[in-house]
């Protein structure tokens, strides 16, 4: 019962929203998008290890 109530309470949490004028985004979504851009950029510049198995 306690676990069920805890789950209901967690589902009720609205989350943190950031707003700039008409633009609004939930913090979690913003973090995911920024992380994707960061990983994409890093994948382009960081050298790939282990070149022994290349043709």
């Amino acid at each position: 019962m306690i676990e069920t109530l805890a789950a209901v309470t967690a589902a009720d949490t609205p989350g943190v929203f950031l707003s700039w004028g008409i633009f609004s985004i939930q913090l979690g979504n913003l973090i995911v998008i920024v992380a994707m851009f960061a990983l994409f950029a890093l994948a382009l510049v960081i050298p790939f290890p282990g070149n022994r198995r290349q043709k």
Partner: protein
Amino acid sequence: MSDIDQVETGTPTEAETDHTWTGRTRRWVLKRLPPDKLLPNTQPSYVASWIYVFGMGAIASLLFIIASGVILSLNGPMWYHLSSLGHFVNSVHLWSVEFFFFFMVIHLWGKFWMAAWRGNRVLTWITGVVSFAVSIVAAFTGYLVQTNFDSEWIAFQAKDAINATGIGAWFNVTNFGQMFMWHILLLPIAVIVIVALHIVLVRMHGVVSPIDADETDSQLINKEIAHVETH
């Protein structure tokens, strides 16, 4: 005796004498996807880049999604709501989906900027787009079958959007049984089949080379010369 040997000795080839559908299918498959293409042990040097790992990251995430989904199916909602292990597996299922889309989107960006549909790879690109679209529907139906107040709220918001498309009377997001079947049977089958087709097409056509590499990469120039010599 191979077909080449038979041609040299003047005897008819297997393709000329065998007209069974199984034989024709085998020859068609082996011609387009020989074992060394299906399971290659080397790749061109340009594949040694982190930008090429995100497709495999999405596949690894999909395996975790399927495995955790099977465990959730075996034990049911009460287990994954009320036991700590069930809650953990439920969370693994959620986070596998997060990583699946995370890697798939970066894979999409990478392939878009490589113009990866070049070199007769249009169908590879299209199957990737379709798998992305079907995966989104699969994820949305997952929201609907959480069996909590969150899923009820989402279903009653989603019904207005679905009704606006005109298919709400048939694809009823407030019908838990229907959404449950879509989420754990129909859509997983669709995602797995399309992703498998996508991978087979990648194997058939090979990993796309960087733009302009055809003119500068000695590997590709040698490959082209060998291709011309054999035809």
